[in-house]
């Protein structure tokens, strides 16, 4: 039974054999393969830049949502103090929604960070190998007979082809993660744009009311409302009890 290691190894070999081809003339293989190496390096650099952009967007959103949570809680407090429980509830519902969005953002930012490190490491390994390949091919061409040079070049090309396959996979996986992240960021921005997370004291249209109605009142809202009532109304309550 072939194990995971030998199967993966076979897949990687098949990948780079297809990529690098099997030209009869080793110098053709060399030039072509060097060109492909440069392309792969360009790809990995682009991948790193994309991850960094996604990470920044995520960080901005986190900050914005955190500010929103603080602001909405403050507004709920003020609304309740003014005797407007309905508005306090609306603000707390929005706060819960903002918190929902915040949940997991840290984890995702950490995942992006890991992708970034992995890509940067891949880029370093591949560029070091590309340089080694470039200097070795000159030595090989100069020192060996055609047949031997061909064999040695084949070996070196295999080594570098494998690194390229590994880098290719790393780029693809980072791309998947980045796309997921962008989709999520887009969804959060849409929520904000639709007014769902906006300042509740701003004049609200019927669209906003409908969206608010769609947000089911969670236990969190009820609990917090009870808690705030306790804080804000404790004076009155005591009066009632005492009176």
């Amino acid at each position, binding site marked *: *039974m*072939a*194990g*995971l*290691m*030998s*199967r*993966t*190894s*076979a*897949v*990687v*070999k*098949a*990948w780079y054999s*297809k*990529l690098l081809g099997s030209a009869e003339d080793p110098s053709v293989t060399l030039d072509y393969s060097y060109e*492909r190496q440069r*392309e*792969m390096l360009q*790809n990995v650099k682009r991948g790193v830049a994309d991850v960094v952009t996604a990470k920044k967007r995520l960080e901005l959103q986190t900050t914005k949502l955190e500010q929103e949570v603080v602001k909405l809680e403050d507004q709920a407090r003020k609304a309740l103090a003014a005797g407007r429980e309905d508005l306090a509830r609306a603000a707390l519902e929005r706060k819960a929604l903002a918190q929902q969005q915040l949940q997991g953002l840290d984890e995702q930012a950490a995942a992006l960070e890991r992708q970034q490190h*992995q890509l940067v*490491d*891949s880029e*370093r*390994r591949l560029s*070091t*190998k590309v*340089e*080694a*390949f470039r200097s*070795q091919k000159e030595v090989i061409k100069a020192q060996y007979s055609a047949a031997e040079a061909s064999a040695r070049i084949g*070996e*070196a090309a*295999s*080594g*570098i*082809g*494998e690194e*390229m*396959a*590994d880098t*290719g*996979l*790393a*780029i*693809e996986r980072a791309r998947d993660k980045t796309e997921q992240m962008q989709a999520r960021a887009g969804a959060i921005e849409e929520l904000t744009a639709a007014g769902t997370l906006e300042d509740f004291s701003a004049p609200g249209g019927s669209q906003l009311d409908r969206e608010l109605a769609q947000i089911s009142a969670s236990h969190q809202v009820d609990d917090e409302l009870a808690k705030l009532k306790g804080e804000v109304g404790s004076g009155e309550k005591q009066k009632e009890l005492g009176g």
Partner: protein
Amino acid sequence: MIVRLMGEGQYRVDESLQERLNELDDQAMAALEASNEIELDQRLDEMFTLVRNEGERLPDEDLSASDAVIPPSDLTLEETRELMSQEGFIPDLPSE
């Protein structure tokens, strides 16, 4: 034997290490066939750790090809299957 940890680099491993890797590899393969992702991830993590700790890291400029390649443990079961099945899980370089 030279082993590649995907996403991390290459290591030279001796025979005794190779035997232990093969045992873990069999268990990982059985876990994959049984669709047991937790077990599969654990075995792969053990393989990574074993190679990292006891193998000899090859310098980046070494151009040797590996004799064995260990896939990463953070793939889903489905992704690992796709990787094994040679169906273009590793994307081609876009032709310019």
